[in-house]
């Protein structure tokens, strides 16, 4: 949801001279996810800005894919004062049911510009096959 910024508040830590809007976004700690599919594989995409590769773990068990991780704040030693916070620096975890049988040994993942893409190749049995008519 959006949060209303109270410009009438007399306490200076709630009045922010940088903001132009009356309503500002508030980030969720659980990443937004898409599930896409083509003939050969399913792809799960998660928005994880500010999360480093070493802070994410992906696992598959019993037909479920689990993505766990944590977004850590950067440069905390240099920070004198936080003027405004909308971003969640917290651990996250989401589990997604695998859409089909997956060739587990060929699952791959890449992280770029805050987008995590997990490729789940379809197992042989579930790939589309054309049947010849004799």
């Amino acid at each position, binding site marked *: *949801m*959006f*949060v209303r910024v109270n410009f009438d508040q007399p306490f200076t*830590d*709630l009045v*922010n*001279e*940088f*903001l*132009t*809007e009356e*309503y*500002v*976004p*508030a*980030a*969720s700690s659980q990443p*937004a*996810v*898409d*599930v*896409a*599919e*083509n*003939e050969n594989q*399913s*792809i799960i*995409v998660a*928005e*994880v*800005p*500010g*999360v*480093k590769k070493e802070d994410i773990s992906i696992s598959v068990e019993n037909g479920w894919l689990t993505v766990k991780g944590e977004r850590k704040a*950067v*440069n905390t030693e*240099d*920070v*004198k*004062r*936080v*003027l*405004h*916070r*909308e*971003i*969640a620096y917290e651990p996250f975890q989401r589990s997604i049911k695998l*859409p089909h049988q997956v060739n587990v040994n060929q699952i791959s993942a890449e992280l770029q*510009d*805050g*987008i995590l893409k997990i490729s789940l190749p379809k197992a042989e049995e579930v790939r589309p096959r054309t049947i010849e008519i004799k």
Partner: protein
Amino acid sequence: MAKNGEVALVRRGNNALARRMEPLEDFVTPAADIYETAEAFVLSIDMPGVQKESISVQVEPGQLQVKGLIGQLYKETTNLVYSEIRKASFYRKFNIGSGIDSENIRANFENGVLSVALQKHESTKVREIPIK
């Protein structure tokens, strides 16, 4: 929980009120943190999926505008089965006060986060007063 002047977090939901608050049709307002160091004010803006070359940071007297265009997440041959990710570019404006040296602004983009450092004017920096 509020400490060191931090504002408490509110969870994101998705409701009609939030959608009406978007200023421009095709743009999303990115979440941003604003903090202060000894030398500068820093804006930390979430722009996942944006291509670095498409980011624009523009300064004019009293205002800073940031924009980032998202790239294509999927090839045309792929079907989207379930979607929570908003496929829109990012745009946000910030006021910048007179305590900032507008000639001296640095931006960098890493892990989908745009970081804009606004150097303080000499006069606004914190000075240690020596005690004799």
